[in-house]
């Protein structure tokens, strides 16, 4: 359902994410894995966001991000998600 919605709004709608740069850095792969393609961030956070997305242009990383999104959706608790997201970053 979520994927469907994101496909639906793929071109026109952009979800803008405000937040702390570092934490957002952790969130980018999850959102990409969920199918989100638009990121609107504060100018100061642009370099980091671009760099992060650049990493995701690598097929292996991209595939892992998709898997990450699936496991995050299946997660049952906040700490579980936090662990998953951090584990992704640690590799």
């Amino acid at each position, binding site marked *: *359902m*979520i994927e*469907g*919605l994101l496909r*639906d*709004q*793929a071109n*026109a*709608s*952009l*979800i*803008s*994410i*405000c*937040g*702390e*740069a*570092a*934490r*957002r850095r*952790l*969130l980018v792969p*999850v959102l*990409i894995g969920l199918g989100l*393609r*638009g*990121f*609107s*961030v*504060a*100018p*100061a*956070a*642009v*370099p*980091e*966001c*671009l*760099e992060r*997305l*650049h990493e*995701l*242009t*690598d*097929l292996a990383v*991209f*595939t892992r991000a998709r898997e990450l999104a699936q496991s*995050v*959706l299946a997660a049952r608790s*906040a700490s579980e*998600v*936090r662990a998953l*997201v951090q584990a992704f970053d640690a590799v």
Partner: protein
Amino acid sequence: MNSRTSNEQPPAQSFELAGMIASEGAALGQARVLGSVMESVPHRSLMPQEIGPELHRFSDAVQSSRSQMRGLIDAGHLDRELAEIFEAQLLLLEDPMLIDETREKIRSRKLNAEWALAEETASLKEFLLKARNEMVRERAADLEDMSNRILSNLMGVPEGDIRIPALKNLPPGSILIAHDLSPSLMLHIRENCAGIATEAGGVTGHMAILARSRGIPALVHVGGLLDRVADGDALFMEALPDAARLIGRPGPAEEQRFASWQTTRNERMRRLREAGAPESPLTLPDGSHAIVLANLEAVPETAPVAASELTADADESFGRVSGVGLFRTEFLYLKDPTLLSDDARHAEVYTRLFRGEFAQRPITLRLLDAGDDKAYPPQAAVRDRDLRGVRFLLANPNILEAQLRAIFTALQASGYTQLRLLVPVVSRPEEMIGVREAIARMRESAAPGLPRLRPPRCSARTSRSAATSLALVRMTLRVWRLAWIATTRCRMKSCCTSRLSFV
């Protein structure tokens, strides 16, 4: 500025205060404590021959305040509620309590007008706040507002808040320390501000948005801040994922941490400037494109004056994004409330935006988003909680029309074609109809040759009714869960706000 005398030596031991990250980064510098308005009022005794002129000066300031407020009310751009508040404040100027008592203090106690007024305001405020009746207690805020206006006239600070000059003239490497910073104060902060720490404030507040947007590291909720930090103290501020704290009297260890943060940061900037650095859009392995857009609150300067390292970063970033994802227009009016009553200058602001850095790329303008925690209108928070976003605009058609007129005039003048409008916090279809009618009227009168608006994309979605709303709610919940986990606020608002694009 000098809320605390720092003649004595700073405390011998270093201290460490924890806070919450509002904007990431690190800073090494000196504390500049921004006191309350009261603490920033000059205090001196008058010579007998100065009393006459001082009384005169006070009357002049009262007179100017009176005509400024009259002017604001008569211009007719205030919504009714705000106009009524101003009328009530004008009555305070006739009230013998405030004005006559202040004059008496100047005369009998030989006090300068600023201090006499501040003292009188403080004692009257205390008196009002003791009242049982809530209506009477609420007058305290009006009294303070009025008194601040007279103070700013006395001190020749046209912007309103008498602390603004201090903010504009921060020495380099200042770490700004305050109880809280209103968005209108934030707008006056320049390059020399290396960091910000406040005792109050939240990570999603407007101070945080502005700090992030300018790349100024900021901590909020720093307990004991004003008790521990004195003006001029050497400070090290860390607002990094593994540490959110303020350290007094930093030693070599802190200096080294700062240096290593700087190195990492500079390295990142260097990579960014290299040819082949990532640029939006990026093609992902599945063939889709990921785009990065910038959020703005002000029109980017074309030739930054004495660009600091921070603004240089931002300029560098602008070249690599696909456009402006969200331009929060309320900040324009917060910075210069007179824009709404000056069509020519108003249109000029948007023309500069449409002709500037982003002339060839899409820009999404969010119409003035007022109410709730929003920064606009500055004088009085919108008291009716429901009167937010689009409902505020529809209730104040003169504001909505002034903004649309300026936007269309600018479109006409610049020939810019990639504008999208975001209508804030829409909850009912008729609200969109109201906005579109206003758009049609303003386009007709300000830019008759312009192509028509494309209907909002979301109209297709709303017709899908319940199933979609449910899906949206679920998705919102999911993402909010993520967001909560990461203490990041993921703005799902775009899902429930409507966009209009030009053909």
